[in-house]
């Protein structure tokens, strides 16, 4: 659909959230939780952390929760009875106050879960999520969205995008049919915007630090470059924090939990950085050392996904670098691949 532009007053944001909630839409938004900023359900604007550049956790849990029930069963003398778990059992939800890199991060997850037999647990939640992102007025040294095809005002993946255009006013871009539907809920708070308004004046300037096509080509050619992966991963302790904060990481595990009579099978986030991830029962491990696991992380995002799913598995949000306890920085590692590798 053709984009529509409106103006919303900052002072009307609390009313907007109230309207969503009173009309039965749960609202997920960034919330301060001690030292970190989580994505959680909120009841009013007060609890929403609009003052931070980025939440610690990405927004992926709106459609891909950290823990999710995929099976439920009871056991009796006659055997096992499965109680069907409906993957589509979720509510239409507003995901509010996330950044453009969060919104566009869903395209990687869409590709992974939508490819082949589709994962309706993810797809139906994603379908029912309306994403209201805020463009970024500032960025920090970890951000590199513009190097991976995004940007601080990128609207890809967002249904509505808000941009702060003065201290009192937000520019509202209505981008999709879902966004249009959500905007009707607070239509009385919207006024017409001047169509000549230049959004770029109000967003951060994020410098491009590398040429993506070149990084993809060089990464693709680097499987056998053991020295490169070793050098890049010497510090890596395999904690998996990078994967857990990443908006595009989709690897998962299943675990059963049960008492004597009933049980559930849970799907949980996992990480290719963990040493047990690929360990065979025999003791053999195809990715035995951390450098091979680092290679997997980078190659999956910058070689395998671009080739097979036509999407780069990185949004340049820099969360992995901010979360890394040993200060590994993906922007620097990718720049090094760009500079050191010759193809």
């Amino acid at each position: 659909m053709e984009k529509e532009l409106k103006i919303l007053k900052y002072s009307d944001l609390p009313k907007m959230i109230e309207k969503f909630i009173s009309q039965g839409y749960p609202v997920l938004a960034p919330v301060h939780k001690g030292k970190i900023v989580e994505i959680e359900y909120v009841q009013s604007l007060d609890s929403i952390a609009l003052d931070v550049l980025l939440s610690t956790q990405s927004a992926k849990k709106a459609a891909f929760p950290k823990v999710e029930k995929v099976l439920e069963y009871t056991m009796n003398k006659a055997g096992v009875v499965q109680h069907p778990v409906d993957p589509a059992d979720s509510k239409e939800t507003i995901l509010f106050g996330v950044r453009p890199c969060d919104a566009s991060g869903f395209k990687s997850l869409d590709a992974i879960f939508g490819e082949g037999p589709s994962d309706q647990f993810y797809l139906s939640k994603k379908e029912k999520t309306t994403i209201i992102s805020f463009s970024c007025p500032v960025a920090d040294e970890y951000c590199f969205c513009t190097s991976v095809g995004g940007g601080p005002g990128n609207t890809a993946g967002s249904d509505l995008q808000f941009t702060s255009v003065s201290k009192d006013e937000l520019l509202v871009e209505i981008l999709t049919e879902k966004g249009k539907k959500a905007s009707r809920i607070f239509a009385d708070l919207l006024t017409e915007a001047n169509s000549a308004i230049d959004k770029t004046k109000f967003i951060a300037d994020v410098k491009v630090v590398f040429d993506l096509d070149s990084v993809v080509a060089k990464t693709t050619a680097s499987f056998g470059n053991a020295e490169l992966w070793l050098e890049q991963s010497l510090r890596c302790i395999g904690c998996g924090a990078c994967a857990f904060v990443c908006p595009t990481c989709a690897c998962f595990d299943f675990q059963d939990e049960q008492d004597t009579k009933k049980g559930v099978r849970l799907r949980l986030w996992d990480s290719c950085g963990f040493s047990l991830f690929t360990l065979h029962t025999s003791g053999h491990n195809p990715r035995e050392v951390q450098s091979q696991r680092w290679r997997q992380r980078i190659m999956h995002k910058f070689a395998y996904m671009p080739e097979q799913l036509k999407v780069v598995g990185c949004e340049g949000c820099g969360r992995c670098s901010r979360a890394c306890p040993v200060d590994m920085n993906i922007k620097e590692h990718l720049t090094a691949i760009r500079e050191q590798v010759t193809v």
Partner: protein
Amino acid sequence: MEQQNIYQPYLMEIEKITEEAPMVKTFRLKFTNEEEGNKFSFRTGQFGEYSVFGEGEVTFCVASPHTRKGYIECTFRQAGRVTAELASLSEGDTIGFRGPYGNIFPIDDWKGKNLLFIAGGIALPPMRSVIWSCLDLRDQFKDISILYGARTVEDLVYKNELAEWKERPDVHLVTTVDPGGETPDWSGEVGFVPTILDKMIPVSENTIAIVCGPPVMIKFTFPVLEKYGFKDEQVYTTLENRMKCGLGKCGRCNVGKVFVCKDGPVFTRTQLKELPDEY
């Protein structure tokens, strides 16, 4: 409308348990829901996720042939947490099965050819599915030879079926055990699989070789096949890597860009040579 849950298994009743070798059992599984069983079909080479409710899932091939309907079989060695639970179950108990997943051995393309099966240890089960699928369509193929080796006589699986193949005039079976693994009454060969293969002087002309076994066996078997003129596209194998979903999503079984679960598990040696060393 309720959407399909791709992670929900079929319920299967354990109809029959066969002790194959120390710690190795075969389960014959019947669909609890007859209608699901009637709709179900698979092709030889495919695998599935077998679940023990409360413990989790484990990945094995379907060890029975696709030519036989109404049940599937799996053969497994008790080695980890889930297989230990599986091994403790009895006939009549219920387990789960998701599948079939993955690609197939293209036996339709092998019509009119000689087939040479080479298997080691617990890798006979995936091969047994192909062997019976081909034997059930015996007139479509020319000579069928099977070379099977295990560490000891006791470790040979499917002992009854080996005896049956031995008796059949239309099957050439050679069994072998590693040096030191033989018993006084052992009448088969003694020696490692590649050595015995060399003694068999295999004919590569119009032959497909299917190789499945531990990595070290495969490593030393390929050169022998090469020596007798087998081209890479005449040689098939099946890979395994740790898996959770079986559907190309959970992210752990990939060998480079190739997912063993959906691009494999069956590969020709030509394809195998293109894969990086990650399996």
